[in-house]
């Protein structure tokens, strides 16, 4: 095939791409966007499949069998998480107008410029070799097609650059990318044309690969069965159809899969297409199954083509990476070969275009702009509109990236298979993973930690993976790989710390990510966050909170002169766009900006967010800070504001507590009410009882007096008896009235009682003395036991005497008629005076223990009937004892006698002898 045909076809294809992009943008302008579609989005994600997939997979399959598949299994495994992780990243990025993965990390960790630089450098270092293999793939396919010779794929790389097709391919791609991707400044405006073109390329490469696959399986062979059974007959081919021969053990396989899983989020081009160019976060829902389906279809024919190639080219002169081209060519299918080349070309161009755009955005926003801002060359007062100049910077950077890729290809890359270089790139961008996951889910992760972790990981990655390739290519001395750094055996790039059994990629990925994560976590925990880091962390981790409540993203109180803000927006966004944005702001906020001397915090934030969309978060921060006066807000205040949610939770909890308290109070009130009702009932009972008690003796007095009045002739002895009864009944009434009066007096007059230090033994003795006569009459055996020492209590002598009398007379009442026995015991126990009175009467059943101290309780016995007395004695005693700060209780069982105990506190100070009142 002549070179002219190939070149013309390629140019025609690029023209077609332009038309697709143009068409998409026209449709968008008409409001009928074709890109605003979940399936187009999912197809554009297939930019993941590059020339590496298109040519390299077959090459890899021809040497290691299944060993190509992990690159796709990783993304497939992680695709269910698109809806969770990718969606969250998109939400955050849309809110903050994030422009790249480096911008994302820098923005999360306090809009740190340094962090942006580090992340950018990692991304560039990792991506350049990857871009270079695209150049290699395109160059090889060009050679093969034009020379019609399968062995032409072994590029020697000896030609001078002006005769080298790869050089011109790099230049052509640079021009194409510049024309394509740098028309606007704000990448968040999205390039609908670009996305449409990428989706279109995804279809082309899929169709081309399926075409060659079907041709090989059904054209060159008779279906899968024929192909594989022929393959199985050759030992070298049968060998690669097993897992063993893939050269992977469990550990390598796992790590390779993990790396490709990370790559699908972290690679600059993936981030650009999946996040920056995304039009709707909900598209992730369709992408989660369409993307793995795409990968499935494009991988079905990889192994068959590899086996077919091995069956055809048995002499080993043909590079397996080019089997997809060689097989149609050798069968004379030139048109198919051209289609395949176009498929490879589309895979490569898609990757190169998006990668270089993403890298140029990163480099200009995170590396070049901060330098320019420092030099003041673009912040001076004479500069009017910088958008053109910034676009110029991006164009130069695109060219630079592609030239770097070409240089890498010429010096190192041509000696390596496509896949090995791709995997090294994967391990490189994986260094951004710990900081990114921390950004999404770990608020304590901070700037210093992220920086330390990324630098550590990057250094180890560089030492373990790219460095040996440089050494092998002769750029660096070879002995580092063989003897270790500085001749230290522990520092061999392929056997760090003596772990040499792993495959290089798994080895490098493991050590770099291990230390990356470890350093990130430890340093984050040991260092403090700045105020801005705290707000950004909250915004990133809790993006759903901000989404639903439309809270202010930036809580800082800032103010700037309106003039300054307007100048900045005009300068960096262009006059037209600035005017449009300000009109939008006025409409949304309802504030008229004309004539306002100062811009409030809201407008400052608005301006910063939009500047960030054009310049990156870190640069926008620097620019805004140059004109803004910030009201210092302390970390504590900031935390307080962020704690709003916790505040609400606390408030809710306080409310709950309050209502619980209310419930408790209600319960208490109810209890008090019940008590009052009970008291009321008691009082009524009391009155009923008292009147009843009064009526009984009164009735007998009345009737006896009437008999005496009516029968004046009553015999003398009977009259005497009646009069005696009248007298004793009157006495009973008097006693009853006295006791009732006593009881009511107790409460009302206790205030005027005079408490004195008195000797309790003396009181007890004198009280008992008055009752001894009565006990003698009843033949009661009485014992009084008093302590040897003095027992002083603070009390009212008369009242305490009353208590002793009450208790002892109570005992007398219940003593049996014969062999009655009463014991009075006074002792000191635990700094308290205890007076107990024991009898051997009928006793009190436990259920009545609490009853006996109630007023008018008279325990009746079926045998003995109602005992004498009013039933007020114990109630009065209880009242008195309690007024003295003491307690009274009963210990008894039915039939075993009763023991009543009074406990009184002993007076705290020891009185002198003469102070003790003698009774």
């Amino acid at each position, binding site marked *: 095939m002549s070179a002219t045909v190939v070149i013309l076809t390629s140019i025609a294809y690029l023209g077609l791409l332009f038309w697709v992009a143009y068409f998409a943008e026209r449709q968008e302008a008409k409001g009928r966007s074709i890109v605003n579609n979940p399936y187009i989005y999912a197809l554009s994600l297939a930019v993941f499949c590059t020339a590496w997939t298109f040519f390299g997979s077959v090459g890899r399959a021809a040497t290691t069998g*299944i060993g190509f598949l992990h690159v796709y299994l990783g993304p497939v495994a992680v695709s269910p998480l698109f809806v969770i992780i990718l969606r969250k990243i998109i939400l955050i990025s849309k809110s903050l107008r994030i422009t790249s993965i480096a911008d994302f990390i820098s923005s999360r960790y306090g809009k740190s410029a340094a962090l942006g630089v580090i992340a950018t450098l990692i991304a560039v270092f990792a991506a350049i070799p990857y871009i270079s293999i695209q150049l290699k793939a395109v160059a090889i396919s060009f050679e093969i097609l034009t020379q019609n010779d399968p062995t032409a794929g072994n590029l020697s790389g000896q030609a001078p650059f002006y005769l080298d097709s790869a050089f011109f391919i790099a230049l052509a791609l640079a021009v194409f990318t510049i024309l394509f991707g740098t028309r606007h400044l704000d990448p968040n405006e999205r390039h609908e044309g670009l996305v449409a073109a990428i989706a279109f390329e995804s279809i082309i490469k899929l169709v081309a690969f399926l075409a060659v696959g079907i041709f090989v399986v059904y054209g060159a062979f008779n279906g899968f069965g024929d192909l594989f059974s022929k393959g199985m007959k050759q030992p070298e081919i049968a060998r690669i*159809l097993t897992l063993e021969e893939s050269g992977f053990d469990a550990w390598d*396989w796992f790590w390779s899969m993990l790396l490709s899983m990370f790559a699908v989020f972290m690679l600059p081009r993936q981030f650009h297409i999946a996040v920056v160019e995304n039009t709707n976060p909900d598209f992730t829902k369709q992408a989660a199954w369409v993307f793995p389906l795409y990968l499935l279809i494009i991988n079905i024919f990889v192994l068959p083509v590899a086996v077919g190639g091995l069956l055809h080219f048995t002499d080993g002169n043909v590079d397996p990476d080019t089997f997809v081209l060689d097989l149609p060519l050798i069968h004379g299918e030139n048109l198919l070969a051209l289609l395949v080349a176009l498929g490879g070309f589309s895979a490569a161009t898609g990757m190169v275009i998006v990668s270089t755009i993403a890298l140029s955005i990163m480099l200009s926003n995170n590396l070049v702009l901060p330098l320019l801002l420092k030099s003041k060359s673009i912040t001076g007062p004479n500069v009017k509109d910088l958008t053109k100049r910034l676009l110029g910077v991006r164009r130069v950077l695109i060219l630079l990236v592609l030239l770097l890729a070409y240089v890498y290809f010429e010096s190192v890359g041509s000696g390596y298979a496509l896949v090995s270089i791709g995997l090294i790139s994967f391990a490189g961008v994986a260094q951004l993973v710990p900081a990114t996951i921390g950004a999404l889910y770990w608020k304590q992760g901070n700037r210093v930690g992220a920086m330390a972790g990324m630098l550590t990981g990057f250094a180890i990655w560089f030492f373990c993976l790219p460095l040996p390739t440089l050494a092998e290519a002769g750029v660096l001395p070879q002995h580092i790989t063989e003897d270790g750094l500085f001749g230290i055996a522990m520092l061999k790039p392929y056997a760090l710390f003596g772990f040499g059994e792993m495959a290089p990629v798994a080895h490098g990925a493991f050590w770099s990510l291990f230390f990356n994560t470890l350093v990130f976590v430890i340093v984050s925990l040991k260092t403090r966050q700045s105020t801005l880091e705290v707000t950004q962390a909250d915004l990133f981790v809790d993006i759903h909170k901000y989404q639903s409540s439309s809270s202010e993203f930036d809580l800082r109180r800032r103010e700037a002169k309106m003039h300054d803000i307007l100048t900045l927006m005009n300068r960096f966004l262009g006059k037209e766009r600035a005017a449009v944005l300000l009109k939008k702001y006025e409409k949304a906020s309802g504030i008229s900006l004309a004539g306002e001397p100062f811009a409030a915090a809201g407008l400052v934030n608005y301006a910063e967010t939009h500047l960030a969309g054009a310049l990156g978060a870190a640069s926008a921060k620097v620019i805004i800070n140059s004109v803004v006066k910030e009201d210092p807000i302390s970390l504590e205040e900031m935390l307080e504001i962020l704690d709003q949610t916790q505040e609400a939770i606390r408030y809710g909890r306080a409310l709950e507590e309050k209502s619980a308290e209310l419930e408790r109070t209600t319960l208490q009130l109810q209890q008090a009410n019940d008590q009052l009702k009970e008291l009321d009932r008691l009082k009524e009972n009391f009155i009923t009882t008292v009147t009843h008690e009064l009526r009984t003796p009164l009735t007998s007095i009345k009737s006896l007096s009437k008999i005496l009045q009516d029968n004046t002739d009553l015999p003398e002895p009977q009259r005497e008896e009646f009069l005696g009864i009248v007298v004793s009944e009157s006495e009973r009434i008097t006693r009853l009235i006295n006791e009732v009066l006593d009881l009511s007096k107790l409460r009302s007059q206790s205030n005027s009682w005079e408490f004195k230090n008195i000797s309790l033994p003396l009181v007890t003795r004198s009280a008992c003395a008055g009752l001894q006569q009565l006990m003698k009459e009843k033949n009661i055996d009485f014992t009084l036991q008093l302590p040897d020492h003095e027992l002083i209590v603070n009390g009212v002598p008369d009242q305490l005497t009353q208590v002793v009398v009450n208790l002892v007379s109570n005992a007398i009442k219940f003593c049996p008629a014969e062999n009655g026995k009463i014991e009075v015991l006074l002792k000191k126990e635990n700094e308290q005076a205890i007076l107990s009175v024991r009898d051997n009467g009928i006793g009190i059943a436990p259920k009545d223990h609490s009853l006996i101290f109630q007023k008018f309780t008279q325990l009746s016995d079926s045998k003995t009937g109602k005992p004498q007395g009013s039933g007020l004695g114990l109630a009065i005693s209880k009242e008195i004892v309690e007024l003295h700060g003491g307690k009274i209780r009963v210990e008894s069982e039915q039939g075993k006698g009763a023991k009543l105990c009074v406990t009184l506190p002993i007076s705290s100070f020891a009185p002198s002898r003469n102070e003790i009142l003698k009774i």
Partner: protein
Amino acid sequence: MPNRQHLTPANRSARLFGIFALALLTFNYPLVQVFEKGNLLLGIPAIYAYFFITWIALIILIFKTLQER
């Protein structure tokens, strides 16, 4: 009737994480080792057939989970 069930966002997330874990397990050792005998299954190398069948199953699982409401 699984389609009738209401799938809360938390439930859906848990199920998606479950599919993710399942994918990691099925695509890795030791499960893949079962098929490394090197024989043909329906005319296709066994290990190959294993990967593609589980792959299709996963896509169906993801699709079903995201369709449910």
